C-alpha cells in the first residue's frame, strides 16, 4: 500500500498542540511570560484551524474520483 504523502500541515496535530497548551494554561503552573508566548502560539495555531475549517465550509461539493482498474 503506497504511503500517503505527508501533509505539511495537519488539522489534528494542530488541534492537539492547542489542547496541550490549554492543558498547560489550566494547570496554572506556567510563569506569566510563558503564558503569553504559549497563548500567542495557540492563537496562531487556531488561526490556521479557522482557515482550514472556513475553506472546508466554503466548499459546497465533494471531490469525487472514480477508481478504475
Amino acid at each position, binding site marked *: 500500500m*503506497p504511503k500517503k504523502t505527508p501533509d505539511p500541515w495537519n488539522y489534528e496535530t494542530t488541534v492537539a498542540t492547542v489542547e496541550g497548551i490549554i492543558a498547560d494554561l489550566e494547570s*496554572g503552573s506556567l510563569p506569566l511570560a510563558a*503564558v503569553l508566548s504559549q497563548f500567542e502560539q495557540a492563537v496562531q495555531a487556531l488561526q490556521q484551524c479557522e482557515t482550514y475549517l472556513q475553506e472546508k465550509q466554503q466548499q*459546497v*461539493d465533494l471531490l469525487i474520483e*472514480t*477508481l478504475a482498474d
Partner: protein
Amino acid sequence: MTNPEFTVATAPTALSVGGLVDYIKAVLEDDPTLRQVWVVGEVSSANNHAKGLFFTLTDPDTGAAINAVAWRSQQARLTTLPTVGEQVIALGTVKVYPQRSSYQLTVWQVLPSGDGLKALRYRQLRQRLAAEGLFDPEFKRSLPALPQTIAVVSSPQAAAWGDIQRSLRHHHPGLHVLFSPATVQGDTAPASIVAAIERVARDGRAEVLILARGGGASEDLECFDDERVVRAIANCPIPVVTGIGHQRDESLADLAADVCAHTPTAAAIAAVPALADLIDAHHQRVALLKTLTTEHLLDAQSNVHRLGQRLLRTRLDQRVQQQIIHLKQLKRCLVQGVQVEMRQAGDRTAALRSHLMTLDPDTVVKRGYALVRDEANQLVTQSSSVTPGQTLQVQLAQGHLTVQVTEIHPPKD
C-alpha cells in the same frame, strides 16, 4: 457400555426387555449427532395436540419417515409451523420412549426448507468465521478521527451511492471521495465487491472505506454473507464501515466490519466527523484559550495591585518625612547648643577679662599705689624684709624712684 456388541451378542444370560430398551435408549440418546441434528424433509402429516404439534417428516426420495413433536412450550420459537405438504428443515433431538419402544424427534426449530438451508449455511459459515476470529471485537479498528480521503464501494446505480454523496456533501463538504464501483446484486456481486475493495487498498489513499447498498429484500443482500466478501472486509488494510440497508439481522459483512451502520447515510456520517462539530469544537477551544489567558493576566494584574497596596501600606513617605523632621530637630538642637556654649564662653572670657583688669598692677599703680622692689627686683610687701639704709626701687604710675630706708615700722597687731 464399553463394548456393546460383545455385551449383547455374547452375554450368556438374556437381557430383560426393559434392559434392552434402556440400552437402546442410552445408545441413541447419548449419540452427539442425534442430540442436535438438522433434518430436511416433507411434512406428511401434522396433528395439533394440546401438548404439542405431532408431525411426520418424510423423505420424498426414499419414503423414509420419522415422527416428530414440537412441544407446546417450544412452538412460539419456531420460525414456521410444519404444514402438511411443505418442505421444512427441522432441528431436534432423537428421543426414545421405552413404553412403545419407539423413537421420535423432539423439535426445537423448524425453518422453511429453501430459506432454511440458506439459513443453515449462513449459520455454519458464521460459526466457522467466528471461530477464526473474524468478528472478534478486539480486532475492530477505530476510525480515523479526521480522514482526508475516504473510499466508497457501491453500485453507481444504487440509491445508496446517492444517499452517501448527499450526506457527505452536507456533513463534511470538501471531502475527497474515491468511488470504487461494484455490482452489489446477483451471482457476480461477491467477486465484484472483493475487486472493488482490493482496488481501494491498491490505490492506498483512502483512510476509511464505506461498503454500502441501499435497502432491498434479504435475497438481494446475499452477497454480504458471502465468505469472499467477509474475508475481503476483514483483510482490508483500512477500517471498513458497512451501510447495508436492511431489516433483518446483521449480515456477515456487518459483523466483520469495523463499524456497522444500518443505512448508507448512517455509514457516511459514521465515517467522517461533521464539519459543524469540528467548527463548534474549534470555537470552544478559542473561547477557552481566551478565558484562560485572560484569567492569568487578571491574576497577574491583581497580584501587582495587591503588592502595590502592600507597599503603600508601609507608608514609606511618612517615614521619610519623620526622618526629615527628626534631622531638622537635631540640627536645631545642635545650633542652639553651640550658640549657648559660645555665649557662655564669651561671658566667661568677658568676666575673666574684667577680673584681670582689676588685677593688673599697672592699673593699681595708676590709682596712686606704688610698687616697691629690692635690689634683686623682688617685690617688697613686708617691712621686716628690709633693713634701714637699704636701697629700694619705687615704681609710680609715671616713672620711678630710688629711695633709701631710714626707719622700719613693724606692723601693728
